[in-house]
């Protein structure tokens, strides 16, 4: 892992000098700002049970399904399309270092964007003069959920990018994989037909990977090691498959 930090700093630098990053960041912040304003409007019209922070993180899936593929679709697909992967892999770097640095840079940007939305709560608290609006429990839990789940989401995006040399295809594949993981579990968790005997293990597996339930636990302050293990093992698996995918394409190129 001698060259990991050289590659990572290069990737982050490239992200920071790219106009596309700033466009994506502006759109993301504008969108999340709109959601936040809407939440405040609802709270000002009638009293609510949940804290604004808990409600805010309920809509995490939308930026996760759209932003993550946008951030990751370029990383390996573009290298392969331009052929720069060949110049990169003929220096003393390993495929693992290349994949991990791409993952690290995309994850850094994803988390940075989310953390910057913490400013919404700070502004609210400053202008309202009410400390209750900066509800640290759900806020901390929510951001922790975003950081932990982001590992798996970004790793899946990187994996999608490793499958093809076409950025658009990588983006669509990534979006479909994330939507299946995040929304599929939610859609299937209420299905009665999965209660039948043979399908019972499948139902248990789906409940274990139910991302919405994980989010609720995190924002309530329940940090379950099973959830952490789910995201960490999923991340490791997705990154391993990404590395294998890049190497398999070399073998058959």
């Amino acid at each position, binding site marked *: 892992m001698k*060259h990991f930090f*050289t590659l990572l700093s*290069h990737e982050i630098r490239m992200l920071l000098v790219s106009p596309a990053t700033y466009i994506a960041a502006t759109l993301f912040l504008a969108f999340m700002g709109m959601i936040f304003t809407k939440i405040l409007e609802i709270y000002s019209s009638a009293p609510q049970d949940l804290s604004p922070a808990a409600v805010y993180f309920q809509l995490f899936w939308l930026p996760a399904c759209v932003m993550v593929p946008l951030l990751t679709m370029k990383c390996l697909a573009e290298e392969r399309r*331009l052929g720069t992967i060949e110049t990169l892999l003929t220096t*003393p770097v390993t495929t693992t270092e290349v994949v991990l640095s791409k993952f690290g840079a995309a994850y850094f940007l994803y988390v940075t964007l989310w953390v910057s939305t913490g400013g919404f709560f700070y502004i609210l608290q400053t202008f309202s003069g009410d400390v209750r609006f900066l509800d640290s429990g759900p806020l901390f839990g929510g951001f922790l959920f975003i950081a932990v789940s982001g590992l798996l989401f970004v790793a899946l995006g990187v994996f999608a990018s490793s499958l093809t040399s076409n950025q658009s295809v990588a983006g669509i594949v990534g979006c479909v994989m994330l939507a299946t993981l995040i929304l599929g579990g939610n859609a299937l968790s209420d299905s009665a037909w999965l209660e039948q005997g043979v399908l019972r293990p499948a139902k248990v597996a789906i409940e274990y990977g139910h991302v919405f339930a994980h989010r609720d636990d995190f924002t309530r302050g329940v940090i379950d090691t099973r959830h952490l293990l789910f995201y960490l093992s999923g991340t490791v698996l997705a990154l391993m498959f990404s590395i294998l995918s890049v190497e398999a394409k070399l073998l*058959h190129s």
Partner: protein
Amino acid sequence: MSDSAPAIEVSRLVKSYSGVVAVNDISFTVQRGEIVGFLGPNGAGKSTTMRILTGYLPATSGSVNICGVPVATQPDEIKRRIGYLPENNPLPEDMRVSEYMYFRGRLKEIPRRKLGPRIDEVLEVCDLKRVRHKIIGQLSKGYRQRVGIAEAILAEPPVIIMDEPTIGLDPHQILIVRDLIASLRGRMTVIISSHILPEIEMTCDRVLIINQGRVVAEGTPAKLRREMFGHSTYQLEFAGDLTTLPAALSGIETTLKITDEGEPHPDGFRRVKLTTDRDDELGDSILPQLLAAGYRVRGLIRVHPTLEDVFLAATRRSWDVVKSTEATGLASANSRTNERGAA
């Protein structure tokens, strides 16, 4: 690694993918400090061989050693010993030249304090100082190609592999690149593939011609000429009796023969081609003897075949071999079928 080991040693290299044999039993050796040209028509297996040399692609069978280190088992060591310019020279579009050099230098493990002066040096050598702060995507083809070459020589590796370094360059830029490669002679081992044959002839010490994944000719351009065309060829323009000419010629040198009688001109002269096994200059003995024998001579030139002729002859010869092998295979298959039919 042993210091006496050849720079590149390829033995019985085979690479096949999806049922297609791209490289078929290639063996060659390149000594240290040599500049070797790698020639072949499109699809001959040049780029595949070069990629295997760099450790980027694994070989199906055979062995490749760079400076005595096997590529298959120690690819990381190999990558520290080579500089590689791939075909089409892929470069990141959105980096500045100096940034790119710095990044590549770090990946190639050049110590930080040496990297700055070394980058200045290669930018100077490749005449890139004026564009060092420009974005690579905005550079012309010639500059981009030089950025690729500068990157390949950056870490001063013992072996440099360049896949078509002069493709798409104008004659002035080709001259610069040629001088650049020539300046590496003796210090680094260079292996270049190219379609521009005069280019190879001027720069390289030795040439390898491959076709259909096989080495079809190997040696210095002069040696290849001798192998392909006999020792020497002369073109004679004379007037006189053609039937007595062979006798007159064998009186001068026994191996001197007419290979092409040509067409007679209306003025009585005709142009014939002569070949001889002798490698030394025969012009000064041919001319007076023919004049003494009563021939009128108005031209005698020693013909030097170009590398292009050698290349065409070598690849044509290998095609003939392939065709005859296929024909033999087909004929034997047919005879087997007939035998079975008769039985």
